[in-house]
């Protein structure tokens, strides 16, 4: 049974709902909503090439469908696909398609276009040049073949039990029409099979989509989805402005991951003014990412002390996460024990992450000095929003109490990822690793080269190259026995707590707050009858939204 329990110690008195709580309101057709988003995806939605954040994922889930989708248990069941079957050793995956599904431009969804999509994602389709996805799929998928007009076969290089989770990829692996795949304007010419068709997109202003009258999915009573006539997304980066817009009626839905906002949303929900839904299921983990490469040339991780274990231990011991969650998190999120949230494979209530201990921290600072002859000094980068800045300074004070010298700086949102990619940081506020199958984290952590060389993986921003982690990731990928898999990822979890490449703070709680007459946040039941995923870290389906008069 889906855990309906609130994830936090202080509940909003029942007025704030969590995943899975039943909403028995009868759906109503028609209506439009405005949904305020925390960011804009200026790079466009050419899915194989795009690097989508959560608002981008929301757009993607509006216009496109993925072949699989997670259900309430975290299993990846067929969604756009009718069936996803594997052979005995998980090296061949047969994707069966539904008949009669059309793209927004009238073309048919068939095996050829699905093959072309998959090839585009893995970098073998000439017109498209994926970056991140080619790292994910490239070397691991051997071939994609059309078996018949409704069947595609994917052959992978090694046994890959987690493959269905990749057909989801946090909602980013949408299937595009041939016209978009081949278009030079792929980033803005959006054609999918999804519940809504793109009407207009003015970057940084609004993204409007209208109902797809031929949408293939029906709700559990057999009604045609989606319910809404249209949906408009508006990027509003400031959380308080989103909140104010919700209370004034300007927006019908907003989302936020800020504890300061969530505290207010709970109060508003308690007063009956709005409907507030929170979830930290299958959540990402917020953490302080450390740059751990010692580069004598000073190019990679310039100036970082965190190649040294004492430095990493010092910051882990000096961070009082309880106080942090209490003062800045308003007791809403949970302290993260590791990258895996409760319910995910590999989760451990205690993975051995050091408990707050100021004296021990000071000892580690001294040990660092003894080791290197230098004082423990570093820079700490974060986001420039007011709440982030205050929290950053709060954390800085904790480190300084242990005798470290910290200088903080902020990076504008548009440049935030760059700093990480260029490994031009020492400590950096970060949030990632949403709770999908733990194998999906392979791409972020695995190194192909041998330690002690810095990780050759572009997206392992911290640069750590850990033999235990590399081997756990490789073993976990091909392991088919669930119990053994769990043990492997638990071992991975413990290794992180031992080496402290990332300092976990909390699992991110996402809240979607709406006017009281808006329902259906989590979307309809999945085609196989299972309940939708209760997580909000990768957005949510728009097909189930409806407004009562």
């Amino acid at each position, binding site marked *: 049974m889906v855990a309906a329990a609130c994830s936090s110690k202080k509940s909003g008195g029942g007025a704030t709902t969590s995943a899975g709580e039943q909403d028995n309101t009868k759906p109503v057709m028609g209506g439009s909503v405005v949904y305020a988003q925390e960011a804009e995806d200026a790079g466009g939605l050419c899915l194989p090439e795009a690097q989508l954040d959560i608002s981008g994922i929301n757009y993607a889930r509006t216009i496109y469908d993925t072949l699989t989708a997670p259900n309430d248990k975290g299993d990846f069941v067929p969604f756009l696909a009718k069936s996803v079957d594997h052979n005995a050793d998980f090296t061949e995956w047969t994707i069966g398609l539904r008949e009669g599904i059309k793209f927004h431009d009238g073309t048919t969804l068939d095996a050829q276009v699905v093959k072309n999509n998959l090839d585009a994602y893995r970098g073998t389709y000439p017109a498209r040049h994926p970056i991140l996805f080619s790292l994910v799929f490239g070397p691991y998928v051997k071939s994609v073949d059309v078996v018949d007009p409704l069947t595609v076969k994917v052959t992978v290089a090694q046994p890959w039990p987690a493959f269905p989770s990749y057909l989801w990829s946090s909602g980013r692996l949408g299937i595009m029409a041939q016209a978009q795949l081949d278009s030079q304007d792929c980033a803005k010419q959006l054609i999918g099979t999804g519940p809504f068709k793109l009407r207009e997109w003015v970057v940084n202003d609004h993204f409007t989509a209208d109902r797809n009258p031929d949408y293939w999915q029906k709700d559990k009573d057999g009604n045609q989805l989606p319910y809404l006539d249209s949906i408009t997304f508006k990027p509003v980066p400031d959380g308080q402005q989103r909140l104010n817009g919700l209370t004034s009626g300007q927006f019908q839905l907003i989302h936020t991951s800020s504890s300061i906002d969530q505290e207010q949303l709970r109060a508003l929900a308690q007063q009956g003014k709005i409907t507030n839904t929170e979830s930290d299921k299958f959540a990402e983990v917020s953490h302080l990412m450390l740059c751990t490469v010692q580069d004598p040339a000073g190019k990679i991780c310039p100036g970082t002390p965190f190649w040294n274990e004492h430095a990493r231990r010092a910051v882990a011991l000096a961070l009082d996460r309880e106080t942090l969650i209490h*003062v*800045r998190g308003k007791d809403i999120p949970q302290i993260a024990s590791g990258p895996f949230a409760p319910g995910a494979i590999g989760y451990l209530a205690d993975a051995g992450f050091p408990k707050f201990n100021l004296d021990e921290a000071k000892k580690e600072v001294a040990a660092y000095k003894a080791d290197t002859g230098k004082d423990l000094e570093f820079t700490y980068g974060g986001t*420039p929003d007011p*709440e982030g800045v205050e929290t*950053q*300074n709060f954390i800085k004070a904790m480190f*300084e109490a242990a005798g470290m010298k910290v200088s903080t*700086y902020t990076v*504008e949102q548009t440049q935030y990822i760059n*700093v990480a990619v260029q490994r031009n940081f020492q400590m950096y506020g970060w949030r990632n690793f949403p709770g999908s199958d733990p194998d999906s984290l392979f791409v972020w952590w695995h190194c192909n080269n041998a330690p002690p060389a810095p990780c050759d993986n572009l997206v392992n921003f911290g640069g750590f190259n850990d033999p235990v982690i590399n081997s756990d990731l490789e073993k976990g990928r091909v392991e088919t026995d669930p119990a053994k898999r769990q043990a492997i990822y638990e071992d991975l979890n413990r290794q992180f707590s031992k080496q402290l490449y990332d300092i976990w703070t909390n699992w991110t709680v996402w809240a979607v707050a709406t006017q009281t007459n808006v329902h259906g946040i989590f979307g309809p039941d999945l085609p196989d009858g299972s309940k939708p995923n209760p997580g909000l870290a990768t957005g949510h389906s728009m097909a189930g939204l409806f407004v009562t008069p």
Partner: protein
Amino acid sequence: MPEQSPSPAPTVEQEPVVAGTQPLVLELPPTETDAKVEKSASKRLGLFGWVAIVWLALVTLSALLAPVLPVPAPDQHFIGHETEAISFAHPMGTDGTGQDMMARVIWGARASLLISVSSVVLGLILGGLLGLIAGYYRGKLDTFLTNLFNVFLAVPQLVLALALVAVFASDPAKVSSQFHWIVDWPVSQREFWLIISIGIVSIPIIGRIARASTLTWAQREFVLAARSMGAKNRRIMIRDVLPNVLPAMFSIALLGVAVVIVLEGGLSILGVGVPPSTPSWGNLIATGRNELTKIVGAAPQVILAPSVAIFLTVLALNYLGDVIRARFDVRESAI
């Protein structure tokens, strides 16, 4: 070369009032008759004037002496006392992480005053020099300089400052690296480039005023006399014209500091102000911008305390600038 506007011959030119920030109070200096009307008010500082001076002295002293004042450290977090209202222990309340607002406002004065005074001084030196040269030598040099000023003035002050800061101080890893400015006063790279950028932005504005003022003085009889006696231009500029231009410059300096304090606030709201690890009045307001509308856990003092500080300081500076301008009234030449 085409004439510059405004074209009525040598009156003191009017200067662009900068929008989006706080306008400069720059007016035609009063005529003798106007001075007669305001005589009783302008020849003495008056109560307001003294209050203004006292306030500015208070702010400057607090800023300079902040490290030794009996206030808590601005980054000390009083856990359990977050978002507290005004109390005996915290005369201006605390913010969302338990920091004492009075301490932050006092320390904020340091950053704000450092940036505003330094950039105005930079603008005065360079802009004043260029304006003096333009107004004294006239002719081609004047036209060239005026056109140069015009080019910079075509872009709004805030936008130009934003672009300059983005160019010079947006490499995140370097932004907070510090060096020691005056003795033990660490200044981050961003603050340094803020000073340079705002200084550059103010050069054309101050330049035009200096030029206008120089124009009126350079045509006076005593300058003519000095020249006919064979004195070198540079000597005349420095010994005869400059001292008369200085009062107008001083008045502008005060007004300029006020403008820059507010400009820094605007830049902070856009995210390119003083890095938030050091409080400044501007970034305190930027951090507190949402405190008024928060439903739970609001700490309006975070935005109100620095706003009041800015208000009083700008008021004092504007008033004094105005008094000085009135006191050293420059005669208007006939059209």
